[in-house]
């Protein structure tokens, strides 16, 4: 059997979901028997080199770069999975969604107590290298089609493992209550 090819990325997230992924511990040895990694921060492959079977997305979209990467993933992955609260709902970064972007930036760079007097020219960072912020933080499925959602903040390692295993082998997903209970 050919190994399934997977890719992962962290958009507007904290890498916590990737950390949880690594919490599968010794199962990583089983995993590597099952799959081959393409673009991912885990192996530091920066560009897609081939079509992938599964893409795991951590984090939502808070700037244009996130959107480009997400669309690139959609174009290169047969199955796309939002994993973790931020990818599914926007998560912590989406707390800014109730405040207009202009106000957020004014507070951060012009009027905040820590910047008063330290930004005399009143500059809001605008270097071309910097991604442009979106008007609000979007969950991934509001930007591209997402096939599956793995909830959790972060999703438990067992859940990630079980989901990947099920996707790769075609076996039904085992979802005991304990791994999807959050309170």
């Amino acid at each position: 059997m050919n190994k399934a090819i997977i890719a992962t990325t962290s958009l507007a997230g904290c890498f916590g979901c990737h950390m949880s992924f690594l919490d599968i511990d010794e199962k990583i040895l089983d995993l590597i028997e099952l799959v081959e990694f393409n673009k991912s921060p885990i192996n530091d492959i920066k560009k897609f080199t081939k079509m992938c079977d599964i893409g795991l997305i951590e984090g939502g979209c808070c700037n244009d770069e996130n959107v480009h990467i997400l669309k690139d993933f959609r174009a290169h992955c047969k199955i796309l999975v939002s994993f973790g609260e931020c990818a599914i709902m926007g998560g912590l970064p989406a707390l800014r969604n109730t405040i207009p972007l202009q106000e957020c930036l004014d507070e951060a760079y012009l009027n905040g107590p820590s910047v008063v007097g330290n930004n005399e020219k009143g500059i809001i960072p605008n270097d071309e290298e910097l991604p442009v912020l979106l008007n609000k933080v979007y969950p991934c499925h509001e930007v591209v089609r997402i096939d599956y959602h793995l909830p959790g903040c972060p999703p438990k390692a067992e859940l990630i493992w079980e989901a990947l295993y099920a996707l790769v082998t075609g076996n039904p997903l085992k979802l005991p209550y304990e791994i999807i209970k959050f309170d």
Partner: protein
Amino acid sequence: MDKTVDVIIKKFNADKTRLMDILIDTQDEFGFIHESAADQISNTLDISRVDLEQTISFYHFFSTKPRGKYTVYINNSVVAHMAGRKDVVKAFEIEAGCKIGQVSHDGLIGLFNTSCIGMSDQEPSAIINGVVFTRLTRFRVKEIVKNIRAGIKVEDMFQASYGDGNNSLEIIKAVVNNHIMKKGPVLSLDYTFGNAILKIIKQNPKDVIEEVKLSNIRGRGGAGFPTGLKWDFCRQSIGERRYIFCNADEGEPGTFKDRVIMTERPRLLFEGMVVAAYAVGASEGILYLRYEYKYLHKYLDSILEEMRHMHFLGKNIGGKKGFDFDVRIQLGAGAYVCGEESALIESAEGKRGEPRDRPPFPVEKGYLGQPTIVNNVETLCAVVKVVLNGGDWYKSFGTSVSTGTKLLSVSGDCRYPGVYEVEWGFSVDDILEMIGAEQVQAIQVGGPSGTCIGPNEFDRILGYEDLATGGSMIVINNKRDILKDIVLNFTEFFIEESCGSCTPCRTLPILMKDKLIKIIEGKGVMQDLMDIERWSGIMKANRCGLGHTALNPILSTLKNFRHLYLDKIQKGVEFDTGFRLEEATKIGRLVTNRN
């Protein structure tokens, strides 16, 4: 400690259940509820600060920040928009120098939106410091703001004359018109005040209930529960005392018939409450009056006083020993959901107007845990006529399933908006002819929570067997964009008015509004229409009628005006989230000067 607040609290005996009244008086006195006033109320009444906070934040007309010396609440209903609200808002914003939702820099004028204030036959309208202004124009707005700047009191800003009928009475003095276009047995003047009371006190209460049952009259607020049955349940429930509530929280956009009844037939209404009290054995009555109709408060109070003098209220009513009953008026403070009977009771107890879980129903455990009946204004009026003329007489009107008459509140695109009392069984076509409506694209029957029908259904009849309605009829002509002008506004109304208790009602209308906007903007796909239909099933899980019907504006038009949706969605596109990078980065690029 503030003396004024202390006086207000004492006026209501520091009674927790009168919190609404205390907050209303505090708000009226200071223009907002100051933190120290809130502390004082919370301490004196022994209510936790959080409990107080949640009551204050629930109602539109309470605020913890100043809303201007003159607070202008501009009606935001569909009919107001039809009548040119946009120009009026713009004129207010220019003249006052602030945007809607804000207070002018000098603190003089505050501009705010508010849900339907029950003036749909005379829009655009606004409430300024409790005084209703109707038929506003740009010119009139200029005059008003000029008067405000000159320091003239709102009460003195009247136009050429006051409204028709009792609206001109010294005690009301409102620039509001009744527009009674058609009278029937309920509105008919063929009635002598007190005769019903004098008749029933000679009867056994059970016989009164039997007569009401015989008439087959059903609740006129919209839900249509058989009145006689409700009374019977209440009579049979065990409790220390019983309560009669009159629901005058007429909040369904497009409805205003209760306002007209209370202006022109208040004695009939209160007599109905006395009849109900005798039938179920109640000792106290409460008229829950929506804040928007506060201008009728003094007048209604004066009628109650008159009734006490006539021995139609108080002890030994009509000379009947042991028949004691009195009525007080409870003001609301702006919340559509309080029209739901259990929410209304919660509100009258001084709490957030959140509907209760049922059972127990109010007839078993209602106000203060005692058996309570809540009847609509119109129902109580009709009952008096039933008692006087008999159930069989009442049944001679209407159809076999829907007996009697219904007061319709007609508004929108027609020549003669106003109140029409018609027998059940009239077809929509009959009504349209009567009200002078032409080139009609649709009729919204029963307000936003009702249904929107097109010309192919205009032969349907009004009645519980076909088109049930609480009375709101909004006519929509063929110049209107139904999705943008009507459905979107209604959906926003439900989002605004949800109490937030049940998750589907709190969240789904917002998701649906996003979908609707997506469709209106031409980004929609077939999947969106399917999602709307599939997802909406969960609304049944909500606790109250508002939650059950909050998606009706979308669902009923999706069913009856499907072509409007199909015309807007993209052809040949299967999937589109509606996300456009260009639009999403617009502000970000603007703020950082990057293009």
